[in-house]
């Protein structure tokens, strides 16, 4: 069964701590510093959006170099094997995988960042001179997601097999109890008539 991060929008305060923790966690493991969660804020909703680790993952299906694999219920990108073709980004229904690379600004001789495109350009279409891109997405931080631990309001939850089983069972019990309440109120209405 797949594992993933689930989101409670009512708890989200839009602080972006998940993104900072994500970035730092990946840099510490020698991976791209690009945050793997995005923060979506509309008039009604604030929520982090990230990879669902789909069972029928389209990104995994289209990868031409097998850089994307399934490992223990989680969809994983090998950033070293990725060739930066961006097919995965095109097919992902959640916008949860996109290309990123390390800027060469700061490297000797190219100390100034010189943008060559407007920043509103879609990440899939961006191109920086000398920057080799690879696909980045949530990898659940090898089973210890940094974003979940960092969230100040517990708006993010790491969902694993055993927890899902428990919650489904609980929800069925709740449903049965609620049905009992409904029966009770129907009985009451009948009595009152």
């Amino acid at each position, binding site marked *: 069964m797949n594992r993933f991060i689930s989101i409670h929008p009512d708890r989200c*305060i839009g602080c972006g701590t998940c993104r*900072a923790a994500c*970035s730092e966690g990946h840099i510490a493991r020698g991976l791209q510093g690009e945050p793997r969660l995005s923060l979506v804020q509309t*008039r009604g909703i604030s929520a982090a959006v990230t990879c669902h680790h789909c069972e029928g993952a389209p990104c995994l299906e289209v990868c031409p170099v097998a850089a994307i694999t399934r490992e223990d219920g989680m969809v994983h990108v090998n950033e070293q094997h990725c060739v930066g073709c961006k097919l995965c980004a095109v097919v992902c229904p959640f916008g949860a995988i996109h290309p990123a690379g390390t800027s060469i600004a700061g490297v000797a001789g190219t100390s*100034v960042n010189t943008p060559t495109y*407007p920043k*509103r350009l879609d990440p899939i279409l961006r191109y920086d001179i000398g920057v080799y891109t690879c696909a980045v997405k949530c990898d659940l931080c090898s089973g210890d997601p940094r974003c979940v631990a960092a969230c100040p309001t517990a708006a993010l939850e790491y969902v694993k097999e055993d927890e899902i089983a428990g919650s489904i069972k609980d929800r069925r019990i709740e449903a049965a109890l609620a049905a009992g309440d409904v029966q009770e109120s129907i009985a009451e209405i009948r009595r009152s008539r």
Partner: protein
Amino acid sequence: MSVSIPSLEDAKCIFLFGYNPSASHPIVSRRIVRAKEKGAKIIVADPRVIETARIADIYMQINNGCNIAFLNAFANAIVTENLHDKEFIAEHTNGFDEWWETIKDYTPESVQHITGIDPETMREAARMYATAESAVLGWGMGVAQQKQNVLTVHTLAAIACITHQIGKPNAGLAPVRGQNNVQGSCDMGMLPNFFPGYQKVTDPAMREKFAKAWGVPVEKLSDHEGYKLTDVGHNAEEGKVHAFYNFGEDPLQTEPDAQDLKRQLQGLDLLICQDIFMTQTCMIADVIFPGTSWGEHDGVFSASDRTFQRFTAAVPPKGECKHDWQIFSELSTRMGYPMHYEDTQEIWDEMRSLCPTFYGATYEKMAGVGHAQWPIPTIEHPGTPIMYLGGKFTTPDNRANLMAHDWEPPTELPDEEYPLILCTVREVGHYSCRSMTGNCRALSLLAEEPGEIHIHPDDAKARGIYDGELVRAFSRRGEAMSRAVVDERINKGTVYMTYQWWIGKCNNLTLHAVDPRSHTPEDKFSACQVEAIEDQVWAEQHMQELYTQLKNDLADLASAQDVEPTSQRQPQETRESVIV
């Protein structure tokens, strides 16, 4: 604030007015989320759909600049529905009838064109607040940085008093501070009218007490109120202020009409800056004292809810840096008043002995993760999480004085030339002037220059502006480049900028208008215009060039400090030649 921050979780109703805790104080925001989960009713009145508005039971998207009109109508709704606590008003307040004389004209219907709020919704909110078992009324810079700020606070306090939502557990007023330890600065007398502990400089007995403790003739202590920060610029220009000792502050970033202020500060005879990083204000200083950062010194912070918390140094200062209190002591000694302290505890104990309200807040009580919440007059006193319990106020007759005021429109209204209302706000990822958080890798990754200008979809469309594009924002004072965020959470006709960006400096645009009492600038309301930039690639490059240039200038000036403290310093170019 009259309540304590943890008690927010146990309030049965929280009413936020002009305060966005998710951006300014995420830790307070977390407590509001928990309160909601514990069943509290949440009311939000704010011109933006802030995060708390999404979980509010009643959200009112008020028009910008309507504060007193809204609150008077809210108070009117409470009284006309007979929801005020007559017994509490009679026993613990003064001036209700006079107060009502002003409030009675402000029906929710009569001010709907100013507030933008449906009268029935306002009445429902008034019922929810007034009838709650315990309610906290919280406000922030949406009240403080407005033309009628102090008057709005009077009105808010009156609303809590007439409904008896003050003076009982988990109920009261929760005004928050705009910066970390602003409460501490005020507590310690960093105000032009008070000695430490809110003891008036105009009170001869207080001057006598402090003169005796400090061993100086009483006439050496000023007997009149001094200038406020927002007065420094024009007073310098008028020749009333000749020297400015600025520490831990970057006014050229954070104060309104920054370009004019820069010109004024450059006219000073002496500008001293004490900071931990090179800032734009340090750049024009005559003398820079390098201070220490939070990890390098000991001290006590006061939270917004009057809680003293002690913190200790993790590492010793580097290079030439010294603790603020050491710099002050050495400067004082050289100016002819020998000042010497062994450590911060000695300073703290002297302060306690002179401030009756803080006397019980000993270092021992604050050891480890301990804390002390003032008023704490004796060593045995447990501290005061909730003030005014039983309706006992700190006025001479222990009764609250109800005050009401008429609404006035903001100073600079939008017009044809500058049709948009500019409101400057906080950003969760960066603190204040950004001199500290701008040096943090993870935080710069989340938000970078030139910052953002939030614009309503209709206003963006009318100007041909797309989400994520660089735009030019300008006012009668100046201009800045910023990145547009098309935002459906804000009122049409308004734009929002955060105030820590160097290239996207909103304070180039803001108006220097202050209220007559607190001299707080009207940062929440000024008129501006925004226009699209045709060549986005040019704009991106130009922005990077400006940013790189400024960073290099700051680094060049700071490099003077790149010497071993023991080695002999080489003669260097004067500051002026470096700037030129």
